[in-house]
């Protein structure tokens, strides 16, 4: 779950530079739209002003603010674009739409809704993520406890300041004082008290199948 955190935020001022070819493409597209529908361009220009403002002041990662406001703004503008394209498709038609304050209000309120979305959603996401993190830490500590239980404190020899290790050691020392036992799980010492010739003798097993003599392992 490790997530890379970008060292610096990519802001509007540091946004990706458009290549000359892209700029040329954009100008050509604009000229094409102007040639075919100057009225649409006029409507879009005035109706999408909040988006342009958002674009100018945007400092967010990946221009999320612009996208958020732009998408909502477009949502408010689109019905009027349809009206223009399907009705009086002329500059006059565009002016009629734009001069209607109610229309402008719808378009700008839509943009405002987008802005509100941009302001309200991130804190909620942060809170949710924090809750997830807490859960994750609890799980990790449980995993560490399990590892300590199975492999003893040697498993944590590289991280001496581990909170789980300290907690486990404190617990085991409490147990020691309570029970006077070093490690209840290790019962090898009990074997020392096994009386000689204990139990019923059974026939001996044959030597190892491979017939090799026993030899101590260097790992011991």
């Amino acid at each position: 779950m490790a997530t890379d955190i970008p060292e610096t935020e990519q802001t509007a001022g540091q946004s990706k530079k458009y290549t000359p070819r892209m700029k040329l493409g954009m100008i050509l597209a604009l000229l094409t739209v102007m040639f075919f529908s100057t009225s649409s361009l006029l409507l879009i220009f005035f109706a999408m002003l909040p988006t342009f403002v958002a674009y100018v002041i945007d400092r967010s990662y990946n221009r999320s603010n612009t996208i958020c406001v732009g998408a909502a703004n477009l949502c408010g503008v689109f019905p009027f674009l349809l009206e223009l394209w399907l009705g009086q498709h002329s500059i006059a038609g565009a002016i009629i739409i734009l001069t209607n304050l109610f229309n402008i209000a719808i378009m700008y309120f839509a943009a405002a809704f987008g802005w509100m979305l941009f302001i309200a959603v991130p804190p909620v996401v942060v809170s949710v993520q924090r809750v997830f993190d807490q859960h994750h830490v609890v799980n990790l500590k449980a995993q560490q406890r399990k590892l300590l239980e199975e492999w003893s404190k040697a498993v944590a020899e590289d991280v001496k300041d581990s909170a789980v290790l300290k907690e486990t050691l404190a617990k085991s020392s409490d147990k020691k004082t309570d029970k006077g036992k070093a490690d209840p799980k290790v019962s090898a010492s009990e074997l020392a008290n096994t009386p000689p010739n204990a139990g019923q003798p059974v026939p001996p097993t044959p030597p190892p199948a491979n017939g090799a003599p026993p030899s101590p392992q260097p790992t011991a």
Partner: protein
Amino acid sequence: MMADTPAEAKQMAESAKAPETNESAGKPDDKTAEKPTAPVNAQTKSMRPIVLNENFLINPAEPFETLDTQTAKAYYAEDKRDPGRKLYALICDPNIPVRMNVLDSIKGATLRGMLSLVSSGPVKWAPQRRKCMALIYERPLGGPVIKDGVKQLSHISEYDFPGFIFRPLIRAISELESRGYAHRAIHPSNLYFFDEAKEQIVLGDCLTAPPGFTQPVLYETIPNGMADPNGRSEGSANDDVYTLGSTIVFLLVDSHPTDRLSDDQVLAAKIEKGTFSLFCTNTRIPAPLLEPLRGILNDDSSLRWGVREIDGWLNGIKQANPQRKPTEKGDLPYEFMHYEHVSPRTIALAFSKNVPEAIAALKDGELVSWVRRILHNPSLSEAIAGIVDGRKPAGDDITASDEFIIAKVCILLDPSAPIRYKGMSFMPESIGMKYAMELLAKNDLNKITELVQSGLPEFWIAAQPGPPNSARLKFLHKLYNQAQSFLGINEYGFGIERCIYEFNDGIHCLSPLLRSDYVIDIENLLPALDEVANRIDPKHLPVDRHIASFVVTQHNQSIDPHLKALSSSRISTKLVGVLSVLALLQWRHKPGPLYGLVSWVGGLLGPVINTYHSRTTRREIEREVPRLVRKGNLLDLFDLIDNIERRQTDNTDFHEAKSQYNEAEHEIKEIESNSAARRRLYENKGQQFAAMSSMFIAMMIIMIFLVLETV
């Protein structure tokens, strides 16, 4: 013809006859050796006969005091297959090593002129509550030649000596020589009449003590006589011939010329006069015997008669009798310790026993001048002066000590004498036996180690006259190289213990664990340890330095990895070493199930089990151990404890677990400590989420409008 015995022999004979406190306390029946000779106390009387090698019965309740030796007690013995056979058993002192190499060579053989060894082996000897070595011999029906200090030779004329004594005994020496050994225990108290009519003399036991151990100084050659009883050389037939000559002189004369002399005086007299002159001058030796005695008692071993010459003489062939070389003597005496020495050998003898006075004498330079001017030996004089002048300033270095300087001077003055250092005196060949005997006597062994490491033996070897590449000197050179390398390694399977087992063929294991056992071969080691398990504190390790060295010496394959593990300072590794050595022996010698030993070892394995990282694995092994203990199989236990696959899996899993733990710890720390950055990350995510939501809503609404318009 019969007379009083020399003081030493008397003492020896008396000590041999001294009854042991709790075993026999009555007067011996001195009429014959046929019947058990001493009443026994009630406890011993109630003891049952002990079985040896399934066929021989030894009865602790029927001792034969007249057949006792200085180092072994004699008891009635019987062959179950042939009850009429006349036998007796010698029960050896467990604190004195038996000559196993000679024993193996003569066991079951009929040697002319010597008691036949019928059988042998360790037995559980109830009177001592431990195992002892028992030797079954043919019983000498005529009893000992010296009984209660009185010679039993009244029926033999001194003119019968060649046929009666010389011939059988020289045959015995010859038989042993053909097997590569020497008797080394020829003295009057060890001669027996084999038959009831007392017409056949035989040599007694030579196995119950190290070579020459029981020999009075009187009978030993000069170099061996100077050595401590536990430091005498294995010797050769040549030495046996000399001791036979000394014995014969003792049997011939009524009053021995050395009767009133101490050991040192005997040695000094032998050096100054020569043994033959000392023993045979002014004594009633029959003239026909003077010739062989002159040859036999020659102090120069290279000129001494051997078996062949004596055989020739016995067959009537005249033998050449080379003249004795004149002893190196000074015209004027050198006075030391109120004695006027004329021979450098007696000076060396006196120096070795009076070190502070010897150092003072060396410092005044008189000895150097005496050797040069009176002894006319400038090279010896220069060598002594070189040692004294080249002495380093006193310090921790033992080569600068007074004892070391005197030891070197003594070697120069008498090169054939034993090495004499700090009160010890031993022939260089007997280093292994010296170690063993001093250990059994619980004496300080550091002196011997110090001597070996100081290079004194090499100095002794270099000082020997004759060719430096002689077989004896080559052997000694190799021996001390080996000893130094063993002593230089302070690990299991090396050190003093290794010297003991490497240089004493067939010596029993001297481990304190096996104190009441008598383990002479490796096959019996595990059964003995299995018995030890029932009586010892289970916290002791079943393999100690003695057992490790005993195994190394007797096992014919390298066990270096086992020794490395045994020598580890980590108890877990040491325990794996213990288990692996024992498992190897069980695998190799197949002594059957060893319930006690496996239980003992199993109880010690806690630290080894704890070397596994996984607690689940540990618990599994712990559950399994008692089951394997009941099987008595060390191999299975070893496979359980030190299984290579299990260990590798444990290690791999442990490293994986470790990296998991570290990763988790890293993540926890990152989450907990890096909150501002994380907040920014989450805010960015939130903004992206908001943008995506906005786009999604916009697309939905646009689609709705398009659909509405189309409809």
